[in-house]
């Protein structure tokens, strides 16, 4: 459950609070025809660590992962602006029941993705303790 919890927390945060663009979720069909911009969300679990205080490995576990937000818009400046908005929206937040999100990192520049849309990826390091 804990590996999934960070993903659930952040996706729920977007569902509840993000109103700027449509959202595409992993594994859910999404059709971007007729929209000017959208974001696409993905969570990648990376590593779990024991945080036992007494060294007997019975303490808390830190679940570490990466939340990826792909930003799509019709031109390069709009794509950069959307990525900026996503970084402001999610950076340094604690969402859900205790998922802590670090500052978002832009990855590369806006690239021509498909059908005249440009794409920019923003990644967030995520920790969840259970």
């Amino acid at each position, binding site marked *: 459950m804990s590996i999934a919890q960070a993903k659930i927390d952040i996706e729920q945060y977007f569902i509840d609070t993000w109103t700027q663009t449509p959202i595409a979720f992993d594994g859910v069909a999404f059709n971007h025809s007729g929209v000017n911009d959208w974001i696409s969300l993905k969570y990648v679990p990376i*590593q779990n660590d024991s945080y036992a205080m007494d060294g007997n490995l019975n303490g808390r576990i830190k679940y570490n992962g990466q939340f990826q937000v792909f930003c799509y818009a019709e031109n390069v400046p709009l794509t950069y602006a959307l990525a900026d908005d996503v970084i402001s929206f999610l950076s340094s937040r604690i969402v859900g029941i205790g998922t802590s999100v670090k500052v978002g990192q832009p990855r590369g520049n806006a690239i021509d*993705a498909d059908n005249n849309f440009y794409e920019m990826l923003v990644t967030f390091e995520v920790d969840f303790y259970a």
Partner: protein
Amino acid sequence: MSLSKEFENLLDQKQKILNKVVLNLYSELVRATPVDTGTLKTSWELKKVSSTHWVLSNNMEYAEIIFRGIRPGVKGGSKNLPDGVYPILQKFNTQLELELANIRA
């Protein structure tokens, strides 16, 4: 041990950790790079600029499209690297931070 000797020892330890993590990262990125013609895999370049400054690059024009991973409904990505390279970078960054923190402990 004198203070200056201790400082030198600390720098030496840091450098060894950095070298180890950078070389492991380089190996992991090369290993994880999908192969079609092999050009992308062989385009990784690791350059040591100074004792604490490394540059790791891949100058293939389509590298960014492959390394960002697969997105449904959008072109690009590779099924052999569906999550892209950025989770790998995060993993090694965390490892570097932990190992450097352990020097101080």
